[in-house]
């Protein structure tokens, strides 16, 4: 479709290694998930989803209240809250803080929110050195790429590619064994942890009634990044707040299971405020940056605001047959897959990538697995209608609109519909052979598109209604 990165998509589709890598990795995540959400092992899974949806709905409807409660509880524990309108405000705050504290090196735990505002590049331009410490994120940072997947950033990289990357960027000997590669990364990163002045993390949840942030991770790097440097800055979208600590009983059961098929991830960290007296670890200063970056605009839209319920588990990506074909780098923004398809147009504007909501077969696998029950296909359909409205004046859209107008007109006139059907059957009754002899028709967009991939059986000589009448007549005779 016009505007889509067609060549890039084609490259992905034709790269057999990449296709296998995506399909296998997502397939593994799917089967791991299935094993831990089945009714035998988790009978109340569907109820948990409903509960999570209701909590999110309630929170988003009362977001102002819970954000203020969260902020005052952070302050009560000696932390500071920074309200950031956009990425520039975050960068501004961090640059000033780094300058004031004389910090150059920053370690980072995995955070999609920081990817969303391209934090690493922007901090780099201020002379700062942010280093990703999640292994996958570290790999994509070394490769100067965007994360390929919300929870598995380097899903597309084989260990051989990682070996080459490490040799090139770190000057180490080529090492293709994953355990050894991890060891290499660990020894590089250990130094960074010890000398960094600021640690940046995201937050999976912001707990309003306690002022704590919750981090859900597997590698332990987030604990290092948030406790070793003197300063910890957590950056989170405003939608990450939940009312009570006890709500985590619902969300923690869903997040790990939906993301990687783990009943719980290896580390679940609750961080609130800087280190207090008698505590042996933790930072001297604790900041939470609450990022808007378009979220309040989304909040204003009653119909689509449920997109803010997302807890970034990535299950919709793993189960999406389109993501499993095109991978994570053919989407216009850092958020890929079905969730990316519904939030990107809302953040960047529906005309920014008008093709995006159409790049779906509407199969509904995403909604089926979404732990907070976001009705993704419904939102895609809504976005499609918004694109159609916004692109009304575009010549190609005009043609399409005219086509659908005529079509609707015909569909309300059964006699005309039947007549045109009979004409179609007379013309296409010979099927593809006829079409191929009429090159003009074969070059017509949709026809060409169909035959580029598939065959089409000839149209039958008689329609159902003709057969029906013939049968009735025969019965009467």
């Amino acid at each position, binding site marked *: *479709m016009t505007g889509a990165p*067609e060549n890039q*998509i*084609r490259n992905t*589709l034709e790269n057999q290694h990449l296709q296998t890598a995506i*399909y296998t990795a997502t397939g593994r995540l799917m089967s791991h998930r299935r094993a831990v959400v089945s009714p035998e092992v988790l009978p109340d899974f569907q109820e948990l989803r409903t509960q999570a949806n209701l909590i999110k709905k309630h929170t988003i409807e009362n977001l102002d209240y819970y954000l203020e409660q969260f902020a005052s509880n952070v302050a009560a524990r000696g932390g500071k809250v920074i309200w950031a309108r956009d990425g520039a405000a975050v960068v501004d705050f961090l640059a000033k803080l780094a300058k004031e504290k004389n910090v150059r090196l920053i370690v980072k735990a995995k955070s999609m929110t920081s990817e969303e505002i391209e934090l690493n590049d922007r901090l780099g331009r201020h002379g700062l050195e942010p280093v990703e410490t999640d292994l996958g994120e570290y790999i994509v940072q070394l490769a100067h790429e965007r994360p390929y997947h919300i929870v598995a950033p380097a899903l597309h990289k084989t260990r051989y590619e990682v070996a080459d990357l490490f040799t090139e960027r770190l000057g180490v000997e080529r090492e293709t064994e994953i355990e050894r590669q991890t060891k290499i990364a660990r020894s590089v990163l250990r130094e960074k942890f010890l000398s960094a002045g600021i640690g940046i993390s995201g937050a999976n949840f912001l707990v309003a009634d306690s002022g704590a942030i919750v981090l859900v991770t597997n590698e332990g790097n987030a604990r290092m990044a948030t406790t070793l440097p003197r300063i910890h800055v957590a950056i989170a979208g405003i939608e990450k707040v939940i009312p009570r600590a006890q709500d985590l009983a619902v969300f923690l059961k869903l997040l790990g299971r939906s993301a990687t098929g783990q009943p719980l991830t290896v580390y679940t960290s609750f961080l609130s405020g800087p280190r207090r007296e008698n505590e042996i670890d933790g930072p001297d200063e604790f900041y939470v940056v609450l990022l808007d970056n378009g979220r309040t605009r989304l909040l204003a839209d009653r119909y689509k605001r449920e997109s803010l319920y997302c807890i970034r588990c990535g299950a919709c990506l793993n189960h999406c*047959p*389109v993501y*499993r*074909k*095109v991978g994570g780098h053919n989407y216009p923004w850092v958020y890929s897959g079905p969730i990316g398809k519904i939030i990107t147009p809302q953040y960047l504007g529906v005309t920014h990538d008008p*093709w995006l909501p*159409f*790049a*779906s*077969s*509407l*199969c*509904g*696998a995403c*909604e089926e697995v979404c732990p907070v029950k976001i009705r993704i296909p419904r939102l895609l*359909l809504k976005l*499609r*209608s*918004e*694109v*159609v*409205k916004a692109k009304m004046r575009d010549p190609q859209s005009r043609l*399409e*609109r005219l086509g*659908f*107008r005529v*079509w*609707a007109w015909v*569909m*309300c006139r*059964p006699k005309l*519909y039947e007549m045109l*059907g009979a004409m*179609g*059957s007379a013309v296409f009754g010979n099927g593809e052979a006829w079409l191929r002899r009429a090159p003009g028709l074969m070059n017509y*967009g*949709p026809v060409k*598109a*169909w035959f*580029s*991939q*598939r*065959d*089409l*059986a000839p149209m*039958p000589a*008689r*329609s*159902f*209604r*003709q*057969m*029906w009448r013939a*049968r009735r007549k025969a019965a009467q005779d």
Partner: protein
Amino acid sequence: MPRVSVFVTCIVDQMFPKVGMAMVEVLERIGYDVDFPEEQTCCGQPAFNTGYREEARKVARHFLKVFRDAEYIVVPSGSCTSMIAHQYRELFAKEPEWLEATNAIEPRIWEFSKFLLEVAKVEDVGARLERVVTFHDSCHGLRGLGIKEGPRRLLSRVRGLTLREMDAAEECCGFGGTFSVKFPEISGGMARTKIDSILRTGAELVVGIDVSCLLQIRGALSRAGSTIGTMHLAEVLAHR
């Protein structure tokens, strides 16, 4: 004799008339008087799914008028049934009169296999087909209407038939209406993944409840040079 109206859908009417005839035959066989309101055309889904809601509404109103008095409406498609049962409400959210008509029609509209099992309460329709088949779960039937075990129960009563499940039964075939021509390469890639799964079963035939999926699957099988055929559930059940 109890009476049912059939909505055969535009695609069955124009491209798969035999599927419609097979459905009629099965319904008559189990004792229904079948009516085909000739004013029927389409449910409006193509326009709705492509973002043309006003155009979809026009066609949907036509549908609601045609079937206003039908006691049961039986449809050989999970997708069109789901459109009428679920999406009309969305289309007419701001038109109370048509919303009422939608609510009135919703409990009377039945996808074919669901009608057999839940209204007619028949599992064995006396069919025979000596073939090894595999079943494709079409997305809107599966996720929109919860159709999963039903068609398999019906197939299990077909004499001579062996069902071999494919590993990717619930994966989309890649059709998706205008998606198939707006993103042909992705759609084709999805079809080929589906076909690989079909081939692994060794089945001779793919059975489904939506001809749109079967159009895609058949087209891709044929392109791949395979001789595996496709059949709508109604055709299987009509076969003796």
